[in-house]
């Protein structure tokens, strides 16, 4: 059968949860059972999701690769496609193409302490890695999650943050930007880089995954270096504009790499070889 | 590739023209409503699209109507001086004066585009305009040239 690499799989919407005022997470499953059986992905990969009549958008698959009966993605309402996706309900059909891109090197990270730093809507790409690590708990050392957002209402997957906190050797730190807290807020107040510095996590054998707005990444990297992390142990996921996801349309080309093929996950060391063009 | 338009002579009686009417909310729409309440009969071929004012009827909408298969387009609103927004129809009049020339240059059949003023009290005029346009468009047949433009894509 000639493979049309641009044609999506049809997915049935199982569940739609509203996370914040403009962020929803959606669980979908393959309509074609054969595809569902053969489908597998690695945490950190992304997919291209279709709202028929509007277009396609790129989101990380934010469910763990161990969960076989559905995949989940999370999006903020900002454009034509996300506005169309905002209207979907259980039982609707949307399109999905993927999995694309490389993934978190979970095998390499085995035996290391994990530091996850997320900002705002960047929690979904981290969530899949956290669940994967918790499901293989013994393979990983101490897990620290520092997750920040502008206000308490912008925190995504709050129920799961509580659930993660129950696990042993896991520290969950939530923070909101100054002024974004509510009177009964128990978490930290401040930006992720400062909260991370204050938490003074020992990072002798640690690996960090930093995902968030460019400003947060820029300020967090020095803190991580001060904590003694080598550049090859700090990872991030680039947010380039993508269209085809299969290394053809040229949009995500940044220096020597096609971010949709060789990325989006890069270590800081790899990013040194990329020009300042992302 | 010459796009010679075959002379349209489908069976006259069966062809039901599709007419799109962009009407202003304060006058022509009420005029059409009045025609309805007065039980004035007029052909059902017209699809009425209500907009706040003729000033808001963007020229793109006329092109969009032909793109989606309309055989004739009517644009109608308040008589000059009656506009709810005082000058919407004046601006529209200027715009249509220039826009008609552009469409004419492009070879679009100008007798498939109709402009009228119909006030809220002119239910009868609405009936008469729609009947007249439907008959005229039925004579001209479907707008094959624009259908070919959209199908050729």
């Amino acid at each position: 059968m000639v493979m049309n690499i641009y044609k999506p799989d049809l997915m049935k919407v199982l569940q739609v949860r509203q996370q914040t005022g403009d962020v929803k997470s959606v669980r979908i499953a393959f309509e074609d059972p054969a595809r569902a059986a053969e489908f597998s992905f690695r945490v950190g990969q992304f997919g291209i999701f279709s709202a028929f009549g509007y277009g396609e958008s790129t989101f990380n698959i934010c469910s763990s690769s161990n969960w076989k009966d559905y995949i989940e993605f999370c999006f903020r309402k900002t454009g034509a496609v996300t506005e169309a996706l905002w209207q979907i309900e259980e039982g609707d059909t949307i399109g999905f193409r993927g999995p694309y891109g490389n993934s978190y090197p979970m095998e390499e990270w085995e035996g290391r302490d994990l530091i996850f730093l997320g900002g705002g809507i960047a929690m979904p790409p981290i969530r899949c890695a956290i669940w994967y690590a918790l499901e293989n708990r013994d393979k990983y050392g101490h897990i620290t999650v520092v997750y920040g957002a502008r206000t308490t209402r912008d925190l995504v997957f709050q129920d799961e943050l509580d659930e993660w906190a129950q696990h042993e050797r896991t520290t969950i730190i939530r923070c909101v930007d100054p002024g974004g807290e509510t009177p009964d807020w128990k978490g930290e107040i401040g930006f992720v880089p400062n909260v991370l510095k204050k938490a003074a996590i020992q990072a002798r054998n640690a690996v960090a995954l930093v995902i968030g707005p460019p400003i947060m990444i820029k300020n967090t990297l020095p803190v991580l270096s001060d904590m003694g992390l080598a550049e090859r142990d700090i990872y991030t996921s680039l947010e380039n504009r993508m269209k085809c996801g299969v290394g053809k349309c040229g949009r995500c080309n940044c220096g020597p790499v096609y971010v949709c093929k060789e990325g989006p996950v890069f270590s800081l060391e790899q990013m040194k070889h990329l020009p300042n063009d992302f | 590739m010459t796009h010679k338009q075959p002379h349209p002579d489908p069976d006259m009686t069966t062809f039901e023209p599709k007419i799109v009417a962009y009407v202003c909310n304060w006058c022509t729409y009420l005029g059409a409503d009045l025609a309805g309440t007065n039980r004035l009969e007029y052909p059902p071929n017209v699809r009425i699209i209500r907009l706040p004012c003729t000033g808001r009827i963007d020229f793109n909408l006329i092109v969009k109507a032909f793109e989606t298969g309309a055989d004739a387009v009517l644009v109608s609103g308040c008589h000059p001086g009656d506009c709810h927004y005082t000058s919407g129809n004046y601006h529209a009049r200027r715009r249509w004066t220039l826009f008609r020339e552009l469409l004419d240059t492009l070879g679009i059949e100008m007798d498939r585009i109709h402009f009228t003023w119909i006030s809220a009290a002119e239910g009868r005029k609405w009936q008469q305009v729609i009947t007249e346009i439907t008959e005229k468009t039925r004579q001209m047949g479907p707008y094959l040239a624009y259908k070919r433009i959209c199908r050729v894509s």
Partner: protein
Amino acid sequence: MSTIIGGQVLRDMVNDWIGDGKRVGGPGYVGNHLILYRWLHRSDELLLESYPRPHNSIKEFLFPSHEKLYHYKIDGQHIELSEAVLPDAQQIIFAARPCDAASLPILDHVFNWDYRDVFYNRRRSLTTVVTLACQDHDAHCFCTSVGGGPDDERGSDAMLFALGQDQYEVRCFTDKGKALFEGKLEESTRVGKVGPGPERRLDLETVREFLKTDFESPLWERQTLRCIGCGACAYNCPTCHCFDITDEKVGSAGVRMRSWDSCQMAMFTVHASGHNPRSRQPQRQRQRIYHKFEIYPSKFGEILCTGCGNCSRVCPVGLGITPVLTAIQEEQAARAGTGAAQEAGREKVDQ
């Protein structure tokens, strides 16, 4: 020993091909002075002499400006997908230029690495390319500087060489080429003429050195300020292959379509958040040069340029590849402080 063919025999062959349902694309007049590659209806639209090359490229026949990818139908909550109809008519590109044909092996890489593009591959397999060796060239041609030439065989199935008096020598390189001219050729000893081709003025080694080190150089800003950010260079270039995927729905059915796009367009890399890594036009011009002369070669081993010169031929403000690469070469020469420095100095008067 060579094989030759008469011009009239060629024109009859073109009419026969069109007659039995094959699609034939070739250069023809548009208006009274512009020459473009187009699908031909009759062979007398074909133009074989007295012009360097058409202003567009044969890319249109293999990677068309718009192409349906798949259809969908929406009824209620259910959606039905259906494949787009792939072409199945044989295609013959006739009297293409060697710098057009040379782009095909280059494009094969990007459309077949990892994921294979069925649309491009289908048209590629249906296509036979007959090129016409160049007799003359104009100020924009620079094929000899990027490894091409007036009789470069890359990508051609057969090549015609003008003999004068409407006679052509034919050299078939592939089975497709031989099959096309089966039984139409006469033995002869005459060998077709080939033009001299443009003299080499660009040295890609020095350019690549510059590209490796000078991403932030002020040269980019100085050289490309006049770029107005249209897509004329990319859309007429034989090797530019970037595209956009759009969705068009009428009523409850629609189609996903791919159309040409260009890194020169302002919105090409803008993020949903509004952040645009390349928000200024010089950055986009830099990306075009990098992708062609540094990124594609390092990834696929081929320069993404065949030196046809269309980018400067169609550029409304006289930019394109040659002016920028020439400026880079002068900058390198000036830096190297070699004898060329004085020559570069004289050029310093103007960008």
